[in-house]
């Protein structure tokens, strides 16, 4: 005779809390997360049961136990499972610095309104990186313990110093015979000056291209001016050329979001779809490039950006529903943290901060920065994030530099007010550079932080979609594992 162990089991057992966090949603209900960031949305009454330790409803008990929010008293298995998952999530921590950015020149023939770094006189080589500095930077890069090293060439317009890029690539491959890393090369370029020699070299050495595509031509050209007013035309033809010579997936595109972009998310996405891109990153408004606003203006702009983002994301979901596969990268970064044990892989959304630990920037003058934004701040007169120079520092000097350590420690989310209690902390990150630029310290005042507001708006939105829309569940799961 079968005993109904299901009810009996639960009646005789005593349950207790495991460490969990919670946050109430404006629309009602409560998000509850465990030590890993595995989450549940509870109704207000379910949450009251959890808070009041009323452990009587079988369905709720099963939900809470399987997500490691509660456990049967003294049960050891949840401890083992949580520890394993946390170890997995943190495995990447010590693999410092896989991305190395070389600013090979500040020269550029574009005059994009949001750019802080470029110098328009395209012939002036005082803003080119010196060969000796480039090789010194390579030596530092190879000291990184990461097995995967990505060398990215930026500028200005990096291809204006293509000679140096060639030398760096060849030297890196020579050095790698000894180091045996997984090397990847990326050239960030507006593609306006691409030619056959460049394409041929890129094909031989398997170099990827990353270019700017802000949206349809009216938007793109308004943002990114150049003599001839043909930035968009050159970008499109450049993309097609690279694809023809090297393959469809050898070039990716990134947008910069300006005020103008905010009114046209669908048009921007349509442009990416038209160009056959399978991913798009709906980036936040860059606070650099015009006077950094603070206070009410910042909040207002963030709200406008959030509307832009949600409209864009909804549109992307519908495109997918109708058969067009395109991934939104910011959402997929959050979803990786929400649905898997991986740590995300996107340096701007990492805690401890990806700055310095995930990426190093070697400027044209040999100075080393913790991140691209850190370098841009220097152009605005703020050297807070300079870590040293290739002429005087080694890799370990750089990682142990005070300015980096301060930034890392102070921005470490779990030790911040509000962050340490926040249910979305496992899904978030701790960008010290943005906070320094907009609020003057590494932490920022969270209630005013646009970064914070983005996470606390976007993550619940993704959770709601996941719970209520079967297609989204499937789509988001696929996005979380790419």
């Amino acid at each position, binding site marked *: 005779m079968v005993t109904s162990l299901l009810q009996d089991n639960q009646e005789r057992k005593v349950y207790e809390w*495991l460490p969990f966090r919670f946050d109430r949603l404006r629309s009602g209900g409560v998000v509850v997360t465990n030590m890993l960031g595995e989450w549940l949305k509870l109704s207000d009454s379910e949450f009251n049961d959890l808070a009041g330790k009323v452990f009587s409803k079988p369905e709720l008990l099963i939900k809470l136990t399987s997500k490691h929010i509660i456990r049967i008293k003294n049960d050891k298995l949840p401890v*083992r499972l949580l520890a*394993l998952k946390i*170890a997995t999530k943190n495995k990447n921590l*010590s693999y410092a610095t896989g991305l190395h950015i070389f600013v090979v020149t500040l020269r550029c023939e574009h005059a994009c309104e949001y750019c802080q770094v470029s110098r328009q006189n395209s012939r002036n080589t005082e803003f080119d990186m010196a060969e000796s500095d480039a090789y010194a930077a390579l030596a530092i890069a190879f000291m990184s313990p990461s097995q995967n090293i990505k060398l990215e060439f930026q500028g200005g317009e990096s291809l204006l110093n293509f000679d140096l890029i060639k030398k760096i690539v060849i030297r890196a491959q020579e050095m790698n015979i000894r180091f045996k890393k997984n090397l990847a090369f990326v050239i960030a370029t507006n593609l306006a000056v691409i030619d056959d020699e460049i394409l041929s070299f890129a094909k031989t050495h398997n170099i990827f291209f990353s270019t700017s595509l802000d949206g349809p031509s009216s938007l793109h050209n308004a943002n990114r001016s150049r003599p001839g007013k043909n930035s968009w035309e050159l970008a499109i033809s450049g993309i097609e050329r690279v694809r023809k010579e090297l393959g469809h997936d050898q070039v990716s595109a990134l947008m910069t979001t300006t005020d103008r972009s905010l009114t046209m998310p669908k048009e921007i996405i349509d442009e990416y779809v038209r160009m056959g891109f399978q991913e798009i990153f709906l980036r936040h408004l860059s606070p650099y490039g015009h006077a950094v606003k603070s206070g009410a203006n910042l909040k207002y702009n963030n709200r406008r950006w959030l509307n832009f983002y949600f409209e864009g994301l909804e549109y992307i979901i519908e495109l997918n529903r109708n058969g067009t596969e395109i991934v939104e990268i910011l959402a997929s970064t959050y979803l990786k943290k929400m649905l898997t044990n991986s740590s995300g892989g996107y340096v701007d959304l990492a805690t401890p901060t990806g700055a310095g630990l995930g990426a190093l920037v070697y400027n044209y003058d040999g100075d080393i920065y913790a991140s691209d934004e850190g370098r841009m701040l220097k152009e605005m007169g703020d050297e807070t994030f300079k870590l040293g120079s290739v002429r005087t520092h080694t890799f370990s000097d750089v990682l142990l530099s005070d300015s980096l350590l301060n930034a890392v420690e102070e921005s470490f989310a779990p030790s911040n007010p509000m962050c340490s209690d926040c249910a979305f902390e496992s899904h978030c990150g701790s960008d010290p550079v943005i906070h320094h630029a907009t609020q003057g310290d590494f932490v920022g005042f969270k209630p*005013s932080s646009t970064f914070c507001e983005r996470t606390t708006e976007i993550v619940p939105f993704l959770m709601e979609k996941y719970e209520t829309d079967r297609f989204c569940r499937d789509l988001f799961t696929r996005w979380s594992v790419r």
Partner: protein
Amino acid sequence: MLTDPHIVNFDSAVFSVESVQKAVYRMGNKIFASISLDRNLIRLEIEVKDKKATIEEISNELRQTVNDYSLREKISAETQEVRNVVLATAFSRVVSQENE
């Protein structure tokens, strides 16, 4: 000095100063506040920044926020031990993985 303060009191036998402070911090966009201890009461003088909200709405939100922080303190205290065991187990294995 707050010009037109509203007073909200919390019993210090039930609520910790820290939970009140955290609640005030969290609502920092909506209120100015000053905290003081008055015998067995934690006394909050608040002034509403957001003119659209009523003082009742703000008070209610404040009380619920303080309650929530108080609950978080309780969760943290009760789960501190198991949390430490999990982290110790997790990080000892990260170290041993690296040594492989």
